């Protein structure tokens, strides 16, 4: 586990190494202090008080050094673990920043956020807290064995003989616990899922499940979790008890063999007693070590996930970036799939002229959104090229490419902060005029007039305190201020009321002016007005042209259009099918 941490820490590893070393020294000193007990007892019991004082002072000296080191280790441990936290944050943060944008659209966002926040704290906390008990359990006993050998190698051998058994038992116990923990974990994940479902689907469960057993699905998951825990407890504690038995057996053997030899006068009584004291003293930290496994396992799992994250390749940045010539876009024989074996786009080619509107239409999963994402280089294509302004997006620096395109998508993400901060981030050095123009053009003025705190209104976490339409307008203002020549737009303005929809449209009009537009289009008017319509199906462009031409062709587009027309004419009327 520590090896993994050191690997992840990279340049900061030496700090942790020095901490480990000091803890190791403490463990060694503690071992020596115990070993010195043998001559100390011998002198006291033998009545040689002069010598006894000398050994006592040795103990005292050891105590002083040990105290100084362990005090330092405690304070430095905290300092180092905070340093390491911050280092780990930086390393993870740096890596997350270079990951392809597309990587973040998966469901892993929450997990990664958790991993980078408490995951890091947990790993550093556990690893620094684990050092002392680990040394107490393993280094101290080894040192005692070695030091005793200096006084009496036979005794040392007797103690050392028990070590392999104890180690073996420890690992067997670990193995058993580990196996059943996995089952336990699976059951508890399942239970969590059912609880979430239980809470989310509560209205439906109550309204439709009239038989009063609405908790049935949840209940079986609860029961399953209980049973898995029970199994893991019984088997896991079997492992623990095996460990305990071995430790106690080791003690018992030393006790009986030692007594037998003492009675036969082949061993000194004081020596045997010192030995017994030492053996009983070892049993405790070793027993405790059995419980350290759990904490260590948690940290190890977290570390594993961090390593996986760090191993996710980032987007390669070009060393000699090209230049953008105009606001055109071109796909040349582009093929792409999110994972190997499943292609989302296959041999797609099209051109978008500057200052035109291109509408992408097709069923869900046909690759519309993927096309907009590839323009922004959320991912790299598997084959072919995507060019913006006549230059392959892979030949552009990330900064230049991002300066070319603005995204106006359905899920608008705003940062905790004020409305003004959220808009200004698009161009921190914007002039007053530019800023005010963006606000007016995106109809954010209508929002801030209604709010008592105006521009200084906090948008809440993720923008939660604004309505959907308001969030969209803020994000459009942001895009207007950014003033990129290419706009990628997802038109699904679902569930906006009539007033908001009209305002969002005003904002979009301002944004579109004199720019190149690629729209995932849903509205009839938008599609009809487009300069170019790309009809997508199964990852290919089925048809490409203007509305009238495509309609006249009577192909896929014509079918699509008829369905759309039908949907538009829908009316709600009881007893009268719309």
């Amino acid at each position, binding site marked *: 586990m520590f090896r993994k941490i050191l690997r992840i820490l990279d340049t900061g590893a030496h700090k942790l190494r020095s901490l480990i070393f000091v803890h190791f020294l403490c463990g060694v000193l503690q071992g020596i202090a115990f070993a010195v007990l043998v001559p100390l007892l011998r002198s006291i019991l033998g009545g040689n008080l002069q010598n006894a004082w000398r050994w006592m002072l040795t103990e005292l000296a050891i105590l002083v050094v040990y105290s100084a080191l362990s005090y330092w280790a405690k304070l430095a441990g905290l300092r180092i673990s905070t340093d390491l936290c911050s280092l780990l944050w930086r390393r993870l943060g740096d890596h997350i920043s270079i990951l392809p944008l597309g990587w973040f659209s998966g469901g892993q966002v929450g997990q990664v956020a958790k991993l980078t926040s408490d995951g890091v704290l947990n790993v550093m906390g556990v690893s620094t807290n684990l050092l002392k008990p680990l040394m107490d359990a393993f280094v101290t006993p080894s040192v005692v064995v070695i030091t005793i050998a200096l006084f009496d190698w036979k005794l040392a051998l007797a103690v050392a003989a028990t070590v392999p058994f104890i180690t073996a038992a420890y690992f067997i116990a670990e193995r058993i616990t580990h196996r059943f923990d996995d089952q336990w974990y699976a059951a508890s994940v399942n239970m969590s899922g059912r609880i979430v479902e239980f809470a989310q689907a509560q209205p439906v469960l109550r309204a439709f499940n009239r038989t009063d057993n609405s908790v049935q699905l949840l209940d079986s998951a609860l029961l399953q979790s209980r049973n898995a825990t*029970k199994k893991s407890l019984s088997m896991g504690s079997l492992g623990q008890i095996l460990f305990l038995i071995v430790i106690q057996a080791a003690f018992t053997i030393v006790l009986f063999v030692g007594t037998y030899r003492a009675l036969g006068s082949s061993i000194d009584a004081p020596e045997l007693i010192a030995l017994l004291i030492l053996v009983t003293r070892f049993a405790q930290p070793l027993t405790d070590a059995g419980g350290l496994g759990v904490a260590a396992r948690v940290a190890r799992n977290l570390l594993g996930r961090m390593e996986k994250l760090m191993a996710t390749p980032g987007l390669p940045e070009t060393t000699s970036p090209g230049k953008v010539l105009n606001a055109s876009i071109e796909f040349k024989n582009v093929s792409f799939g999110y994972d190997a074996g499943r292609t989302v786009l296959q041999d797609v080619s099209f051109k978008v002229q500057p200052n035109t509107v291109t509408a992408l239409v097709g069923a869900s999963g046909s690759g519309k959104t993927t096309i907009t994402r590839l323009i922004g280089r959320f991912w790299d294509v598997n084959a072919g090229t995507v060019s913006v302004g006549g230059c392959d997006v892979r030949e552009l620096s990330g900064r230049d490419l991002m300066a070319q395109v603005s995204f106006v998508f359905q899920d608008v993400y705003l940062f905790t902060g004020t409305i003004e901060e959220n808009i200004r981030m698009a161009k921190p050095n914007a002039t007053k005029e530019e800023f005010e123009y963006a606000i007016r053009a995106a109809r954010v003025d209508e929002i801030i007039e209604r709010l008592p705190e105006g521009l200084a209104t906090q948008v809440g976490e993720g923008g939660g305190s604004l309505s959907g339409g308001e969030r969209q307008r803020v994000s459009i203002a942001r895009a207007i201020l950014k003033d990129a020549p290419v706009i990628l737009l997802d038109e699904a303005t679902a569930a906006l009321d009539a007033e908001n929809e009209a305002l969002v449209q005003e904002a979009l009009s301002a944004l579109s002016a004199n720019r190149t537009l690629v729209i995932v289009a849903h509205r009839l008017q938008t599609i009809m007005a487009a300069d170019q319509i790309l009809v997508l199906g199964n990852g290919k462009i089925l048809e490409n042209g203007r509305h009238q031409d495509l309609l006249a062709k009577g192909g896929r587009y014509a079918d699509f259009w008829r369905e759309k027309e039908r949907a538009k004419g829908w009316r709600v009327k009881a007893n009268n099918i719309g």
Partner: protein
Amino acid sequence: MDASVSVEEKPKLLSLRDLLSLIKPVRGSMIIACVLQAISAIASIVPFIAVADLAKVLLEEQAPVNADAAWRACWIAFFALIVRMAATYTAFFISHNADNDFQLYIRRRLAKHLVKVPLGWFTGRSAGDVKKAMADDVMNMHNLIAHAALELLTAIIVPVVTVVYLFSISWIMALAALIPVVIGVYMYTRQLKKGLELMDTYTESMGKINGAAIEFVQGISVVKTFGQTGRAYSRFFEAGENFLSVMWNMMKGALRVSSIAELFLTPITALVSISAATIFAVQMGWVSSFVIIPFTLLGLGITAPLLAMIFGGRSLQEAAVAAAKVKALLATPVLEEAAAAKEVNNFELELQHVSFSYDNKTKVLDDINIVLKPGTTTALVGRSGSGKSTIAKLIPRFWDVSEGKILIGGVDIKDLPSTVLYQYVSFVFQEVQILRASVRENIALARPDAGQDEIIKAAKAAKIHDRIMELPRGYDSIVSEDALFSGGEAQRLSIARALLADTPILVMDEATAFADPESEALIQDALSNLATGRTLLVIAHRLSTIQYADNIIVLDKGRIAEQGTHRQLLDDNGKYSRLWERHERSTEWFPETRVAGKHKSNSSFSNQSV
């Protein structure tokens, strides 16, 4: 030190009595576990005493050594070890099983309770919060149930028995051995108390990093497109640094004291103080040199259980907080249930002087009066926040009205048991709720006894049958395992469910229809089939869809501003006609790129490109 004391100290935590009543079902096993633990604690000291006795026998000056006595001591130690092991293991097993059973018991109790709280309670918080309480908080109580009592017992019994035994040997020596322990424990507990007071600051800044990390990862696509990666990153970083400095300040002082306290409690200190005291006492002729043996054997073992207790303090604190949360959740007020159903004569739905407020301060609805005649369609119109969704949710009792009444066929819905109410009212809202169960079970939720033909009929009317037949196992496919539905398909599945439930009154959100632009027409067909022949209340977003409704109600700030048919309202030339104008305009809108001159001609690409 005492578990119950720290539980009682903070007012928001549970009193010991509340705690005992919460864990009632496992109290029996916990008592047995405690008795076993006490036996184990005493048995753990016996081998040390036996070894001390053995030492005494072996060190007897006069020969021959009493071999019988020596072996007796060995066997006593051996049996004590076995007893201890057996007792520890059984106590552990019993207490952990009790905890496990308790978790099941309390989760079931929570589930039973939560199905009775108002539905609106669930919309007020995320499912994650419920999961946190039911899964995590209950699990966090683990320390309280499985460990606290047992650790406490060990921490009391072992030192007390040891100290009594040591005093019986030599009181001077016992005092010498105790001095560092007393100093250490005193320093430690004082420090611990201070540390606990700082816990809130700690938790708070910990929460801030979590927030910043989520923002950093979630918002990264946005910041990247604006070329602001560095800024968002530094925000996350600042939160982290801030947390660390809070922690550093909080721990730094405490750590000095606790490190020194720990040094007083380390075995080496005990070793030094005991050996120094022994040598001195022997020189003074107060004791025989032999006392060194029981004291080194037992004196070093006083502190370990105490330390374990102290280290366990923090998780115990967490466990106590979790217990308080669980208890609070169990105390959430439940919706009052009518015992017996009153007869409903017809399915006319009426809202009489209905007012509603979520927080008892601002009224979301104010004196609403609506009558829905059986078989008619009523549409609710208004901007977001006007109260239309609230009205829709009051009818299936997500919340209860603050004032006024909602009547079905003249009977107050509060006088109908929920099982009866939901035989009359069903709803199709935007947020789809399908369960991780078979497609069949999902459709037949309302009527598990429904036949295959009925289920297929509903699925066909909901335009989802064909999609289901494409699945590998058809109606037996499990949702989110081998049945993966798009948003629109999930909508249609939930419409099939409502069709099979076949209630006379239906509340529906029209936004459902265009939640998925791809299959809009199919969802609309399904909704049309569902609406047929029922009393319908529609929350409208697109005015064109509801222009033929029997009654259109225009809401504004929680009040009814206008009502009537589409024609009447247009003729009145009021709010509705203005909304209609906007709506007309928005359906005609399309994006244009070549409009130079109309807007400020913001240099399109010239400034970035070259």
